[in-house]
C-alpha cells in the first residue's frame, strides 16, 4: 500500500522577507558561481604574471590589436600573439563616481583607453596615481602588474609615466 491519505508536507521556518503587501513584494535571492573559460584569450591573462601585455597581430593584413582577439575583425584571418610596449598614451579617460554594484566600493576610479606606438587599436584599463584634474589626453602612462594575480584584466593597471 503506497497511498497515504494523510500525507502532509513538513513545515519549515524558512519564511520570506516581505517589503510590501499591496501589491505583495517579496525578496527573491539569486547567487551563482560561473565556470568561466577565457578560451582563446587565455594567454593574455597568463602573460600578465610575466609582466607582459599581449595583444594580437594579423599576419594577413598587418593589423595590430592592443586588446587581443583570436581572429582579425578586418579580414577574418587567425591572429598571432604580439607583445605590446609597456608604455603608451592616454587616448581618452573618465573618472567614475558611481558604477555597478560590484565596483561601487572602488569608486571613484579612473578609466582610460590607452594608445600604443605602432598598434592600431586601443586598450581599456584603470589609471591610478592621478586624479581627474591631472589626467590629460596624450599623457604618457606605463603598465604595472599585480604580483598576486586574480586572472582578471585588472591584473594590469596604468600609472603616469615621466615624459
Amino acid at each position, binding site marked *: 500500500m503506497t497511498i497515504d491519505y494523510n500525507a502532509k508536507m513538513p513545515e519549515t521556518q524558512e519564511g520570506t522577507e516581505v517589503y510590501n503587501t499591496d501589491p505583495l513584494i517579496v525578496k527573491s535571492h539569486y547567487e551563482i558561481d560561473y565556470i568561466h573559460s577565457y578560451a582563446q*584569450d587565455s594567454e593574455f591573462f597568463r602573460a600578465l604574471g610575466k609582466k607582459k601585455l599581449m595583444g594580437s597581430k594579423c599576419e594577413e593584413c598587418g593589423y595590430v590589436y592592443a586588446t587581443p582577439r583570436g581572429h582579425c575583425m578586418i579580414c577574418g584571418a587567425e591572429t598571432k600573439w604580439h607583445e605590446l610596449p609597456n608604455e603608451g598614451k592616454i587616448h581618452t579617460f573618465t573618472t567614475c563616481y558611481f*558604477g555597478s*554594484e560590484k565596483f561601487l566600493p572602488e569608486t571613484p576610479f579612473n578609466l582610460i583607453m590607452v594608445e600604443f606606438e605602432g598598434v592600431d587599436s586601443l586598450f*581599456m584599463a584603470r589609471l591610478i596615481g592621478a586624479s581627474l584634474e591631472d589626467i590629460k589626453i596624450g599623457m604618457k602612462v606605463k603598465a604595472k602588474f599585480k604580483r598576486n594575480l586574480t586572472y582578471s584584466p585588472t591584473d594590469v593597471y596604468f600609472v603616469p609615466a615621466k615624459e
Partner: protein
Amino acid sequence: MKNGGRDVYMVSGGVTKFTKSNPGMDFRLRTKHAFDYALKDIDISVKDIDGSVASYFSDHFQRQLMSGIMAQDYLALTPKPSKRVEGGGATGGLAFQTGVEEVASGRMDVCAVYGFETMSHVNTWKGNEFIALASDTNFDYPVGGFYTGYYAMMAVRHMHEFGTTLEQLAKVSVKNHGNALHNPYSQSPMKITVEDVRNSQMVSYPLTRLDVCTMSDGAAVAILASEEKAFEMCDHPVKISGIGTGTDTMRLSDRPFLKVPLLPNEKESDYKNLQYPGVHSFRAGRSAALEAYKNAGITDPLEELDLIELHDAYTSSEIQTYEDLGLCKYGEGGAFIDEGKSNLNGKVAVNPSGGLLASGHPVGATGIMQSVFMFWQLQHSIKKHFKDDTLQVKNAKKGLIHSHAGTGTYVTVSIMEAVQ
C-alpha cells in the same frame, strides 16, 4: 518601399506612462494596457492581428526567461506566429524593423510589435551591473563595468576632437526635460537650467545625473499593416518609407581609425584630418542612416526631415547622433544645439517627446515608444493622445526614429512619412 517587398504602414500605437517603479502591474499587464489602447484607437480587435514581435532586453532584471511568450498568451495572441528580438538598447528599434519585415515579406498583413522592460526588480546599482554585462566580460566588464563610464570616455574624446563643451551637453538635457513637461507619458519632466545640469551629482566625468537617463518600467506597442489593410483600418496611416541598421564592434577598444562614410550632402574634403570613428563617433549610426536614407530617397536630411526621435541615453549621444545622421557635419554637433536647431520650433525638432532622458528608458519598450510618438506627430494627433498640443510639430510630414545599443554596437534608423 525600396528596402524590398510590400509597402508597410503604421496604423496604431500605445504607450504606458513610464515610471521608475510600478509594482502594481507586471510586464504582461503593462503590455496589455498599451496593446488595448492601440486596438481601441482604430477600433480593431485582437482577431485582426496576424502575428507579433516581442521586444525586451534583459532576462536578468526579473530572472524570468521567455517573457515574450508570457506577453503573447496574456494578449490572447497564441497560437499566432511570434518571435523575440534582442539587441541591447536598440532592441525596440530592431523589433520594430522586424515587424516591418514580417509585413513587407507578405508573411503577415497586420503585425503587432510589443516591447517592455521591468527594471525596478533590482536596485539601480545592480541594474547597472546587468547592463554592463552587455560589454565584453573578458576585457571590459571587469575593468569598468559601467556603461556611463564607457560613454563618458567617448564624450571626452568628442570634446577633445571637436571642442564640444560641457554647456552644450547640458543644453540637450535642458531641452529634452523641458519638452517632457507637455508629455503626460514621460517619467522625468523638468524645467531646469544649464547650471542645474552641471551642478547635479557627477556620475562619470563629464556626465552628471541630469546628463544620463534613468531606469524605468514601461511598455509600448506599434501595429503595422500592409497598404490594403492600413487604409481599411486607419484614416491616417503612416508609411515606413525606409529602414537601415548598422553595427560596430562590441569593444570600444576595437573601433578602427578610418575615413568617414559620406552622405550625399558631404565631401571627402570636409574630413581631411579626421580618423573615424575612433571612440568619438558612432559608425553604426552613420551606416544605419546611409541605408535608411538610400531606401527612403533622402539626400539632404536637415532639409527633408521635420522631426526626429533619437536615442539620447546620454546628452553626449544626442550631439554625436546629430552628426551621424548628417544633420550637420562631424564636429558641428555642439554648435547645432547652441543655435537651437533641434529645439521644438527649430529647424528640425529633435526629441520633442523628451527623449530617453526625460521620457524614460524601459529598454525593450523604448524604440517602440519612439515609433508611437512619431506616429502621433505625423498623424497630427498629439493633442488627442497627450491632451495638450504644445509638442505637436507644425507641418510634421517626414520623421526619423533612431534606436541605439551599447556604445553604438547596433543602431537602427527608420523613416516614417505621413501620406494623407
